[in-house]
């Protein structure tokens, strides 16, 4: 929204796009630190968590991988719609932009809903932020990601309503949508990493779903 954003720049990249890339670089380090914390503690305490009855349980007994796979798929598809919204905006097709961005908002809300359900479900199974290191790292890591998604949804809602003022148009309008898109895709990519290293890897190895240790530990 800066006038200077329309002026030619030394690198040829718009100011606003460049600052978003820099923010994302910084956010990489942010999530990198959170994911490292989680993985370090997983390696240190491989057994997982203590359930509501006081039994030590493996993490894959807690996870509902079907639900998480579904919400991951939804988030991936939201990125697809986001790409369509950006493309529509570049072509000046405002109606198509609105339809696609509404889809992104809806899918983002479904993802958040799944996360709220998952958190409640895990809480009732006995995993709290206070009773184990796994609980602390899991809730803070995925919760921080959820906060990023929520901010993205809020941003897109504001852009959606802003489009009705008629001011979201031309090069600047397309740029604003593209930058929101960069953010959304980044948050999506971070989730792919979290889904892999927090959820999927729990099913590998001797303690995993194909390993021998599962049967002996389940009470």
């Amino acid at each position: 929204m800066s006038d200077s954003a329309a002026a030619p720049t030394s690198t040829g990249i718009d100011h606003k796009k460049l600052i978003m890339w820099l923010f994302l670089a910084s956010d990489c380090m942010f999530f990198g630190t959170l994911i490292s914390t989680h993985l370090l503690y997983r390696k240190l305490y491989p057994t997982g968590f203590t359930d509501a009855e006081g039994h030590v349980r493996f993490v894959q007994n807690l996870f509902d991988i079907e639900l998480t796979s579904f919400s991951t798929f939804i988030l991936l598809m939201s990125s697809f719609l986001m790409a369509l919204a950006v493309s529509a905006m570049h072509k000046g097709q405002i109606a198509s932009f609105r339809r696609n961005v509404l889809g992104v908002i809806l899918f983002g809300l479904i993802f958040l809903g799944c996360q709220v359900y998952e958190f409640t479900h895990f809480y009732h199974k006995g995993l709290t932020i206070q009773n184990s290191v796994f609980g602390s790292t899991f809730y803070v890591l995925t919760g921080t990601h959820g906060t990023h998604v929520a901010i993205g949804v809020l941003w897109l809602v504001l852009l959606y309503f802003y489009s009705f003022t008629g001011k979201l148009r031309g090069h600047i309008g397309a740029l604003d949508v593209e930058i929101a898109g960069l953010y959304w895709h980044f948050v999506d990519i971070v989730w792919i990493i979290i889904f892999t290293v927090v959820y999927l890897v729990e099913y590998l190895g001797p303690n995993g779903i194909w390993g021998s240790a599962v049967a002996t530990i389940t009470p």
Partner: protein
Amino acid sequence: MATAAHHAPVTDKTELPVERSDIGLVRPDRTTGLLDWLTTVDHKKIGILYGAFAMFFFLLGGVEALAIRTQLAKPNNDFISAPMYNQMFTMHGTTMIFLGVMPLSAAFFNFLVPLQIGARDVAFPRLNAFSLWTFVFGAFALNVSWVFEFGHLQGWFDNYEWYSKLVYKDFAPANGWFSYAPLSGTFGQADAALHAQRFTGVGTDFWIIGIQILGVASLAASFNFIVTIFNMRAPGMTMMRLPVFTWMTLVTAFLIILAFPAITVALIELMFDRQFGANFFNPTNGGQPILWQHLFWIFGHPEVYILVLPAMGIVSEILPTFSRKALFGYPIIVFSGAVIGFLGFAVWSHHMFTTGLGPVPTAAFSLLTMAIAVPTGVKIFNWVGTIWGGQVRFTPPMVLSLGFIWMFMCGGFSGIMHSSAPADSQQQDTYFVVAHFHYVLLGGVLLGLMAGLYFWFPKIFGRMPNATIAYIASAMVIFGFNLAFGPMHYLGLTGMPRRTHTYQTGFGWEQWNFVATIGAYILGLGVFLAFANLVWTAWRGKRAETDPWDGRTLEWSLPSPVPAYNFAQTPVIATRDAWFEHKHGAARIGALSDGGPEGVHMPSQSWMPLLAAVGFLMIGLGLPMMSMGIPHLGWLVIAGLGVLFLGIWLWAIEGPGGYHLKTPSAKSVTPTPTASAHA
């Protein structure tokens, strides 16, 4: 955007009709007085505000240092109590690093970078104002803890229920500037209110939220400066023609955006431990306090270079000016600065040699730490090469810069001693370490920043500081500094532990501690004198010429003080040190006539950055008070989030606005060599 419609250029925005945002809010337009300073988006005014706040906090941190030194002047002293002593050294370190050195560097970034690259402002002027006010309010939230500590000592809270429930009543931060867990963290199981037991009082909560807010300010400023330096260079100003100060600003900004996320996460984790009973660093439930050390120093070591690289950039501008030679080995100085930045991320564990990392990591971090001495040494050789054979003028900035090289080298040498893990395990947590980092941060950074202040002050305010007082102050600072910190090498090697409240007689420490205290007072008076000289100059000093030092970079081609639009016409650069070449040789600065009769486009002022920063202030005050157990303060935090969101939303929909400012006639704005006394 409609507000930026074309109109005849004006000399002041108040000549135009009032500008309103889309929802009818009036935008501020005064360019003088309090209203201007609160809403300005001018990088020069923001730089001056950064500098003023930083100098205030420098003096505050200095008073805290003098309290520490007075306490240690003689054995078994009781000038301040042990809990107060802990708060003093914690707030001294935190204040000097986050509220003194970093904002003073930011003051130079703000004032100089756009001028040095031939730009009219930074890329995001309102974001720049947001960085400033977020810094100011973060610093305020941190220091409000002193008010609570004062109230506690005065017995103001004696009749309150929340006060009687507090276990630890240290209200100012008291766990050292790196706040090691578990001291800063929790132990035991969380209770029904989700609180685990804590080792320290709410001072730690002030520290956590204060540093978090200051981090937001630093990150926002760094994003802004990287975009500015990459994108707003004048035509012909290639990367390898950038002044070295601008280069070091760029490296520093990259260090900030990549290092601050680590401390941000660490602070979030610590906050969750303290507020919600999480277990990141709680040993009772399997948390590993050493994780805090890793996360802190992954931030903390790059932070050291965040502090020193701007000072190195300043010195790299001053030495060539007063040697009347181009900087020796410009490309290798730039490259060394970048290498220091990279290596800065690979040496954090040298702060942790005594934690038992194992032989392989210890050896690796030892080697990498020794390696970082190479680019640093290269820089020092290049500076010496710059002075060598030059026509040296010993002006106050030059004296301070030479002091920088000398003192920084001393600090560097003891740093190489630390890089050897066996030696370091003897020096860990002794006064030897205190001596080392004060040589680097005070002898290095403070002298460099003071040199910068005395060098650019005539450009910033158009007035020349008194040279005699400057020489006296410089001598007092350098002499007092060595008297204070030189003996600490000896004290440390004979075993005096760091952060000790007092010491017994008979260790042989009495004499040198007393000498160090005398040195500290001379140093303190010197810094005060140097700053007082500057403050007096800003209002009453003698008028300075446009280019009093025969400068080399673009800012010296502009009038002093610099007009709001900086460059009436965009300069076109043909060489490094363009202004010097332009004055003394063939004209090397062209001009684009983009100012012209339409005037220069200026961004409008705004209240919104200040409003968004007020949201951070409410969070910064609410969270520690909530942590104290004062009822209903959680609502202040939520309201703070609301104000933050409101500020950002109004900021987004108001747009940059803008108007056109008249420039002097084209004839007088083409850069011409001024007939200065030195030419």
